[in-house]
């Protein structure tokens, strides 16, 4: 057997290691994705049957005010949640990145909300935000103020959804930041200390550049996740009042499972897929380009220690 045939057989057999994953990936992700794209070109019923309509479902979507409102709602929600979910966990991680018992306790506290299911989270927040008898309204009543309509005012409802979501989702990015902070070599901090670098200077020149890749990861991860908002408005407001809390996924759910118009729902899913893809790519290119140019512009902190 020649060396080249051995090499080719070796590369072939290596593929077997990833075959199970590839099989599952193709069946559960790629096939449904392509099938969904195909379905979006049909007027179809949830229980079978359909007629080919080309791009009519997409044209219908762009005329549908409810869908357009859901797109605007989704962007608004992403803008409300992604910045705090990128920045707040970083601050928490910076505060809790120490080995004291108090820090360990608060790490547990802040992570604990992430393990709750959406049902529990919405149940708890409903009891807090209900304008009649909710905890928030009881507190405002103590001060003689009127209850804030957190869930029934179209101008406030999405902010309420954002508060709930930030509270719920803080834990995981905080853990990612903590793990990134613990990867930063201690000798760099020791060198900065010897140079009498201030806390702010250390944060700005050592810590943030060291965790910049994690910041990008968290921002992209949260962006993808928050574009798929569903459970909170589905369980608390059903998309109301006046459609102000209806995101794209709830629109897709209503069209697909309540109206059984799955071709139309599939078309809306393709639009959501495109939005997430574009937003993620734009974010990735902007942040990586900026961090590369910053890295080139700034002098290296690490000295000759």
């Amino acid at each position, binding site marked *: 057997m020649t060396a080249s045939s051995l090499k080719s057989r070796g590369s072939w057999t290596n593929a077997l290691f990833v075959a199970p994953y590839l099989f599952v990936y193709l069946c559960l992700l790629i096939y449904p994705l392509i099938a969904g794209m195909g379905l979006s070109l049909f007027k*179809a019923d949830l229980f079978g049957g359909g*007629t080919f309509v080309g791009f009519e479902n997409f044209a219908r979507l762009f005329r549908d005010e409810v869908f357009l409102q859901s797109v605007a709602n989704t962007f608004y929600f992403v803008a409300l949640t992604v910045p705090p979910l990128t920045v707040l966990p970083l601050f928490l991680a910076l505060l809790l990145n120490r080995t004291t018992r108090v820090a360990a306790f608060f790490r547990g506290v802040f992570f604990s909300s992430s393990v709750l299911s959406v049902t529990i989270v919405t149940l708890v927040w409903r009891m807090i935000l209900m304008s*009649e*008898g909710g905890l928030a309204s009881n507190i405002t009543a103590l001060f003689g103020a009127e209850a804030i309509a957190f*869930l029934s005012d179209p101008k406030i409802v999405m902010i309420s959804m954002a508060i709930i979501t930030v509270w719920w989702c803080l834990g995981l990015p905080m853990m990612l930041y903590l793990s990134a902070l613990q990867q930063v070599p201690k000798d760099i901090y020791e060198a900065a200390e010897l140079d009498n670098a201030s806390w702010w200077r250390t944060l700005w020149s050592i810590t943030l550049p060291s965790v910049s890749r994690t910041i990008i990861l968290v921002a992209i991860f949260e962006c993808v996740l928050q574009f798929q908002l569903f459970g909170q408005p589905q369980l608390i407001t059903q998309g*109301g009042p*006046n459609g102000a809390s209806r995101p794209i996924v709830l629109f897709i759910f209503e069209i697909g499972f309540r*109206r059984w118009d799955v071709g*139309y729902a599939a078309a809306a899913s393709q639009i959501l897929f495109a939005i997430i893809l574009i937003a993620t790519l734009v974010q990735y290119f902007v942040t990586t380009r900026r961090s590369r140019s910053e890295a080139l512009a700034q002098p290296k902190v690490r000295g000759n220690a």
Partner: protein
Amino acid sequence: MIGPFKKRTPHPHPLPSSGEREFRAVLMALIGLTLMSCQPKSDVTEVTVQRIFGECRANVPQGQAPIKNPDGECEVVTHLLDEFQKANPDIKLKVNIAPWPGYDQLSAQFASGDPPDIATMHMSAMPDFASRGLIEPLDGGFKEVSLDVDNFTPAARNGVTIDGQVYGMPFDNWTQLWHVNMNLFAKAGLVRDGQPILPRNPDELLAQARQFKAKTGLPYLLQPTDNERAAFTRNLFTYLLDQKAVVFSDPKTIRLNTPEARRIVNLFKQIYAEGLMAPGQDYPAAMAAFLNGEGGICLVGTWMIGTFEAEANTAGRPLYQGYTVKPYPMLYGTEQAAFVDGHAWVMPKRDRTPAERAAVLKLMKFLQVHDYDWARTGHLPTQKDVAQSAQYLSLPHRNDIVALASTGKTLPAGVERQFAIQDIVGDEMASAIRGHKSVDAALSDAEHRVNDLLFHVLSRQDR
């Protein structure tokens, strides 16, 4: 080396080590299980029951009558299924409880080819499932178990009959009602001869609501306004029937942008704007508010009669000896009208053995025989003999509402996607009543959205 080891003398019959003992025990258990699996197949027929009405096992201990809220929907249905199970040890009921209205779960089960053996379904939803061949016609099956369809009340029979075939065992008919806190009504001076004074036109409604609020400091109406769509739709449909308005000119076209609809929505909008209806309440909050005596009238369905009546019989509670219930007072016409729907038990189409089919039919027969028990919840009975019985009519308030079983009207049978329509209409009504949208815009949008939905329903020949 730690030290010299003492040489052990081998035991003539060595005892097994603890690890060996555990291994043997596991082996024996496995052999036992294997042998058990070779026994003849169990004679028990398993049937999957999927129902709504909530979970309340804590109130109905297995094998016992309800220990709390005995006339509540959940308690009665839980007890009925327990009783059936007790009487039929050869049938095992596996009960799934779906959140109301149950169709998200049921639709997904149908789409994945794994529906339950028997399920609850609203009569208004049955045409959607029947026209797609997802539920079985039951005329033949009912004959096999002597389930007499001629005993169904007209409203019930009409509700489960599609294209001349019976598709379900009607469990009840229901409608929304005015549940009245008589203690607060007395305080507001709205009681005459022991009966609540109810309005006969929109002006009287506003005047009485203002009087109630002035005398009690509480809202006249309690109705879920947040996270709720169905209640607003039912109000609209009932008062459109009151005005004899044509809601559907044909099964594919709704008419909502009309003077009749505008009159109703403007009235409720004014009630809301004047604070005569409690704002910011979802369904549980509105029910709790009524139970706690925080409003005069609760607009909710027949299903709450049992629960409210239990409160009226509990000393110390705000409703104690101060509860009654009436059909919606007619504000525009004189003839009593009501938008009604109902619950039925259906048999989803799926592969099943003759024994499973027989078990499902036996359960349906059992539920028909126990129609009175279910009617204790407040729902209208579906069996003529029960509706006319002294036992039923002697239940509290039933004389006031039993006529609705014959006068109540559903949407035209040919209208598909009635639950989706209810969602759209309720969504727009809520926007208009709470002032987020003008009444004209909301009615126009509701009409457009419903007609667009119906226009895009796949035609029967394409399914």
